[in-house]
């Protein structure tokens, strides 16, 4: 399927119906998830209502990691197989991943202030998430700094692959170091430790964030392809 969609024409045809579909899905999931999470879910037995920040914080955090992994795979595919649209996908995904990482850091800070008594700590998890955010910024800046697009694409791909080493550090930081941030409750050996009444809204919000990512990335890729077509047409007219 990746090969099938590497033709820009076919990709435009696919995204013409796929992007609006994901947009509708994202709207639906947010419409269900936000009230469920923020109003109708049970308060935590220790934290009370503060736990509701979790439904914004956790999906943003896991998706920012997942989006970077997506960019890493896209960069690898772009470098090795010269897939035509892989670098377009990575470039479109980067600002979304950066924003989700920013949301994770900010909502986490607001969550930590009442529960931990501090807005920020330099423990393993928070520091490595901040490093991830800065790596995102560097990747986005690199694309804008280099004039020729295909060279920019491949240099950015190399940078993205170098940064992939941070992903396991972020994921396992709560296991490797004694951190203030709590250890994993969902993706851990031995099954999840989170209460069933919270899994529903959490999964819905995760799906909503993921659908939002898919929507924005597909529209972003369409915009990039349209821009290339416009530039090509301008060049033809000038000739």
């Amino acid at each position, binding site marked *: 399927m990746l090969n099938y969609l590497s033709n820009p024409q076919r990709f435009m045809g696919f995204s013409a119906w796929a992007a609006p579909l994901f947009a509708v899905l994202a709207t639906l999931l947010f419409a269900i998830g936000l009230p469920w999470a923020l109003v109708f879910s049970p308060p935590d037995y220790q934290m009370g209502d503060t736990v509701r920040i979790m439904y914004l914080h956790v999906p943003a955090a896991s998706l920012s990691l997942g989006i970077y992994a997506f960019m890493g795979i896209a960069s690898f595919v772009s470098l090795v197989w010269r897939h035509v649209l892989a670098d377009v996908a990575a470039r479109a995904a980067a600002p979304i991943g950066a924003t989700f990482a920013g949301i994770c850091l900010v909502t986490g800070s607001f969550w930590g202030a009442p529960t931990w008594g501090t807005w920020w700590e330099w423990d393993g998890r928070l*520091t490595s998430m901040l*490093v991830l955010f*800065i*790596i995102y*910024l*560097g990747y986005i*800046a*690199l694309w804008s*700094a*280099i004039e020729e697009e295909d*060279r920019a694409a*491949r*240099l950015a791909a*190399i*940078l993205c*692959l*170098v*940064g992939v080493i*941070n992903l396991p550090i972020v994921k396992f930081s709560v296991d490797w170091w004694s951190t203030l941030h709590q250890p994993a409750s969902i993706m851990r050996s031995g099954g999840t430790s989170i209460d069933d009444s919270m899994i529903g809204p959490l999964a819905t919000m995760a799906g909503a964030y993921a659908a939002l990512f898919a929507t924005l990335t597909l529209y972003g890729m369409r915009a990039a392809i349209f821009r290339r077509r416009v530039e090509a047409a301008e060049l033809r007219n000038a000739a």
Partner: protein
Amino acid sequence: MNAFSVTFRRDFAMMWSGGGALAPLGYFFGATMLVPLAMGPERDLLAAAGPPLVWIAAALAVLATLERLFQADLEDGSLDQMLLSRAPLEWIVLAKACALWCAIGLPLALAGAPAAIALQAPVERVPAIVASLALGMAAFIGVGLVGAAITAGVKRGGVLIALIVLPFFAPPIIFGSAVASGEDVGAALLILAGCALGGLALGPIAAAAALRLQAE
């Protein structure tokens, strides 16, 4: 004469000439001087918090030299000659990295001794701090090679290389500061050595890949 020694001697001569290590050393001492100006000169406070800040000054100084590492070669065509040579580009890049470490990294590490003392580090700790800086410079250079290669063609790329490379400077700084504060010195030095060896082993590979793209 093999490619490694030729490149090493050429780069060492270029870096050492025209003032050589003086500018990075001046930057290093200047940045060190700003620390007590910002923190206040009170001895106890400086002794507790000051020595690790030597690492920040060292990281910034080496970043300034990394920026020009490949730009000069890209501009005057030496990079094309390096690509044409029979030696692998990774090997030549490693030679440049070694030249940078000998010409500038090592002097910076040695300059760490007076800087650490100026920041009220206890004298017994200074040899460990110099050793950690020498290893840290190698780690910085290994990782910085990639950033330098990626931003080689960019005009005014100084801020960009800092943005790209600083996240990867974090591990050497964390463990180097541990040595400077005197905690777990042996373990921290070992991990620093690991960072240095890893950086020098893997950095040239990514840097050479980026340089091949720059030369097109």
